[in-house]
């Protein structure tokens, strides 16, 4: 797959010759320096951009079709909540819009079976599990940054998505809030086992969350290595202090550094 911005000699090739297959139910992180095209890759999967060459399939269908069937749950960098809606209504609005999606979902092969496997949870239950039970009727401005990002995550899960696409969702949060949101995301994910594509700058975050870490390099954006993280789940704080966790961190960091040097050379 290839994606370039602009044309001719001034064109910037954001992604070139990228090939990646994500098995269903895997948690995959994309990590790499700024400008390596990881966010572009994510936007293509979320149907927000089209590749110039090649194709992307989400569970066998094109991203546009997947979006039309509301199979994609997007969590952007900022929570992107509507400031005039309560927490509850911010979560339920995307469910109410595009009501034709239910019909389209039926036509997606295998989706019904995958959906049946996902836990049946109401929005209220999801919000309560995220620690937002008391805040259902608050406006986003009355919440802290961390709480707002929790709402954004619940909003994505409430769509019962087939693929969760997360673009550095925790990068604006402080260390402690970030770890507690990682805990929450892992708890939800272990229950749902939906496929996740997660863009991050943080090696620790990538190793902690993922089954697979995809290391990318830039100029042009490409995948240099895929690192499988073979650590037991659930991954609690204790694991983060163990030697094998640090070994994986060192491995990913080493691959990142190598990618950096190869482009400098």
């Amino acid at each position, binding site marked *: 797959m290839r994606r370039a911005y602009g044309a001719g000699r001034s064109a910037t090739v954001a992604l070139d010759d990228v090939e990646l297959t994500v098995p269903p139910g895997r948690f995959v992180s994309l990590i790499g320096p700024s400008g390596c095209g990881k966010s572009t890759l994510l936007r293509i999967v*979320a*149907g927000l951009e089209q590749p110039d060459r090649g194709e992307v399939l989400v569970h066998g269908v094109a991203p546009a079709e997947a979006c039309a069937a509301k199979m994609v749950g997007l969590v952007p960098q900022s929570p992107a*909540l509507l400031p005039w809606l309560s927490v509850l209504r911010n979560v339920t609005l995307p469910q109410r*819009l595009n009501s034709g999606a239910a019909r389209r979902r039926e036509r997606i092969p295998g989706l019904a079976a995958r959906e049946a496997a996902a836990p049946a949870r109401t929005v209220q239950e999801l919000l309560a599990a995220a620690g937002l039970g008391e805040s259902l009727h608050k406006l986003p401005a009355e919440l*802290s940054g961390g*709480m707002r990002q929790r709402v954004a995550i619940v909003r994505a899960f409430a769509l019962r998505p087939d693929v969760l*696409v997360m673009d550095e969702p925790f990068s*604006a949060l402080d260390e402690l809030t970030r770890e507690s949101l990682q805990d929450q995301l892992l708890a939800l994910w272990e229950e749902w086992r939906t496929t996740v594509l997660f863009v991050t700058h943080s090696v620790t975050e990538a190793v902690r969350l993922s089954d697979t870490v995809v290391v990318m390099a830039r100029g042009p954006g490409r995948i240099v290595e895929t690192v499988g993280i073979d650590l037991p789940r659930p991954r609690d704080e204790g694991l983060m202090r163990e030697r094998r966790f640090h070994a994986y961190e060192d491995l990913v960091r080493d691959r990142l550094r190598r990618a950096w040097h190869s482009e400098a050379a």
Partner: protein
Amino acid sequence: MSVAEGRTEEASDVRPARPSRMRFGHPRSPLAWLRPAVWLPPAVMLAVLAALWSWGARRLPYLLPPLRDVGSSLTGNPGYYLHNALATLGEAAAGLGLGFAGAFVLAVLTSELLLVRRAVMPVAVVLNVTPVVAIAPALVVAFGFGPAPKLIITGLICFFPILINTATGLRSVPQEVLHVYRSIDAGRIEVLWHLRVPYALPYVFAALRIVFPLSVIGAVVAEMSAAGSTRGLGTAISVASSMNQLPVVYASIAVLALMGVALLLAVTLVERRVLHWHDSAKD
């Protein structure tokens, strides 16, 4: 607003609820007017101005009527002023309504259709800098002394601020919000109604705060330009000044000023109700 909201850094995940906005002594609370620090400065200013006026009225009786005469003209014939004020207010409101409806529909079209935006916006900007009051006499010639030219002038004056602000507001939805709703393939009408229109509301109210006083100006100018009209404060002013009845002129002006204040107050109250979630409705 929401673009930056994810970037606020909070050490704690919990934040105390925002204190009530309407407590006593708050700068925006109506009860704040009980505090001398709030009512005293404008009161002193008014007293100084009134003293200057009275002094001027004694020196130049042909230019300034004594305030007492203005007051007695108001209290002596309140029905006359009320009747004319209602006529002017009716024209202003009807013209504003027309201008608002037209501008809002056109703003939606410019935000949805790039071609319309490219065609309309440059023309709108040129027409906006053309003083509409200068068209008033021509419109009176074309449409006579009835309500038509008054509605057209008022509507035109209100049209452009609403058009430009609303068009800007409809396009002010943050990129990431649009991404979330595009990723669920929300329809155009859904995006317009659930995202674009609410995000445009603060801009619409900013325009209304400009346009409410302008609508009164439009109505008065139209009345003055139509020499044969029989109602309205603009007519009252031009008739009274041609007969050198200065107290009536200034009493009418005072009524117009009160009307403007009342309209502005009304917009502000509605705005605070509707935009309680927006920064402009706080502090």
